[in-house]
């Protein structure tokens, strides 16, 4: 389904600021997999998702989605296959467009856009139905500008927009991290429901170990641009936060040990 072969990514290659962000990543993800991705800050999680989505091109390696080699495809072309939700709720919607205009934009993801009306009257009922499922009362506000909505409402709308046209791959980059705990939980449950309902192949970055364990059928831990841990099936099911923390601190501990060595 998704196959990453030898993905290497540097930032500012050859300069003093050089960052080695992805270190030869090999990863096969099956259709319908829900993968949670964890790792410390700067581990390369966002960079990995960006390479899949086409925000960055890798320095070497190959990206195959649905048996198509998309390595050289620009971001807009990959939109046919991929939907994304970002951490910042402001990034997923157009503030000065109305709710229905935003949904109409999303309902054409990866399709040709022509001179037909942007918002068609026959779409409105469908939009309203879908908004009703959110239970936030947005179905009464089709003509409100999205800039008027709260961060949580905007993120819920973004989730809906990302999935109203079924994507082959759904990429979530800490998409609840900027929300208050209650709203975050609602969006998380919404995510789970949508992913389950449409059996979406999903990668979800999270910094919450509990979420990483309780959601999805596979867990990946990145560290310094490499895959440190890759747990599936029974292994993932039986995982506890304690196991995971132990693994996590083992990697951090190595660093600390190294630091103290250098200091001595």
């Amino acid at each position, binding site marked *: 389904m998704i196959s990453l072969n030898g993905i290497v990514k540097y930032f500012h290659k050859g300069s003093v600021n050089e960052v080695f962000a992805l270190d030869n990543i090999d990863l096969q993800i099956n259709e319908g997999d829900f993968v949670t991705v964890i790792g410390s800050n700067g581990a390369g999680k966002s960079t990995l998702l960006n390479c899949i*989505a086409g925000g960055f091109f890798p320095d070497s390696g190959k990206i195959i989605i649905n048996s198509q080699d998309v390595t050289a495809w*620009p*971001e*807009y*072309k990959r*939109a*046919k296959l*991929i*939907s*994304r939700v*970002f951490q910042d709720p*402001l*990034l*997923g*919607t*157009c*503030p*000065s*467009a109305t709710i229905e*205009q935003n949904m*109409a*934009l*999303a309902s*054409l*993801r*990866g*399709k040709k*856009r*022509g*001179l*037909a*009306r*942007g*918002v068609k009257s026959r779409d409105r009922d469908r939009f309203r139905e879908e908004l009703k499922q959110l239970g936030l009362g947005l179905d009464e506000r089709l003509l409100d500008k999205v800039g008027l909505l709260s961060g949580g409402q905007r993120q819920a709308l973004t989730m809906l927009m990302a999935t109203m046209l079924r994507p082959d791959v759904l990429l979530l980059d800490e998409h609840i991290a900027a929300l208050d705990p209650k709203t975050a939980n609602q969006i998380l449950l919404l995510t789970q429901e949508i992913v389950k309902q449409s059996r979406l192949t999903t990668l979800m970055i999270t910094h919450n170990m509990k979420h990483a364990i309780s959601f999805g059928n596979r867990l990946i831990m990145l560290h310094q641009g490499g895959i440190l841990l890759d747990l599936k099936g029974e292994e993932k099911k039986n995982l506890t936060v304690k196991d995971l923390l132990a693994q996590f601190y083992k990697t951090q501990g190595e660093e600390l040990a190294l630091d103290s060595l250098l200091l001595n």
Partner: protein
Amino acid sequence: MTWYAALGAVEQGLVYGIMVIGVYLTFRILDFPDLTVDGSLPLGASISAVAITHGVNPYLSLVIALAGGFLAGAVTAILNTKFKILHLLASILTMIALYSINIRIMSGPNVALLGQETVFDAVIGYGIPAHFAGLIIFGLFALIVLSFIVWFLGSEIGQAILAVGDNPQMIRSLGVNTDTIIILGVGLSNGLVALSGALVAQNQGAADVGMGIGTIVAGLASVIIGETLFGCNTIARAFIAALLGSVVYRLAIALALGLEFGGFRFNPSDLNLITAVLVISALIAPNLKKRLIQR
């Protein structure tokens, strides 16, 4: 201000209003400050004038002018999107290049249209007094352009144009090539500016390479006046406001030129200074207001 001067100002407001609609598209919708217009206005004028003197139908000459303006805008947008030159600089480069190109087109700094048929002759032919012909033709064209742009921005492509100015990252991840949209939008904007220039040339009976100087400042002034007086809640309202802003701006200028303070009078050549001061005060007024309120 005499009745005649006011009529002239409204006329000008309408014809330059087509330019202002173009400026609104780049500045406000696409968030792309574009100075190409100082070159594409005389470009449209030169193309139309030269075409007419070569026997081309005056209406067809408008279409050619529009296409020429589109091309000029597309060059600016390509310099920006494909070659990563800052939009302001890219547009200045195109504008400067257009100065030479316009002189080439006219084989000199200007072309006169004396005795040639223009789009105004048709109206005069229907027995309408000559001094109303401009008002009618300009009003008609302004209305057509206004309706077209509002219709176009409501289409699937148009909505994508709005989104590019609003949230480029989002619309890219929805599968829209933002470069193509910017080229289309800046091209369309300059096409309208060139159309405006062509109509001006046919009305005043000449195209001149210098007639574009200050276009962008006048355009901005009109946009700001329009937004302030008439609001910009919806797309339709915003573009109507831009057109009306242009009329108010020309009336204000005519009023200023008619003022007299004990022997001192403004010259038409003071127009750019007056406009620049107007735009500057409109730009700093919100800041000033904030500071005063904070105190």
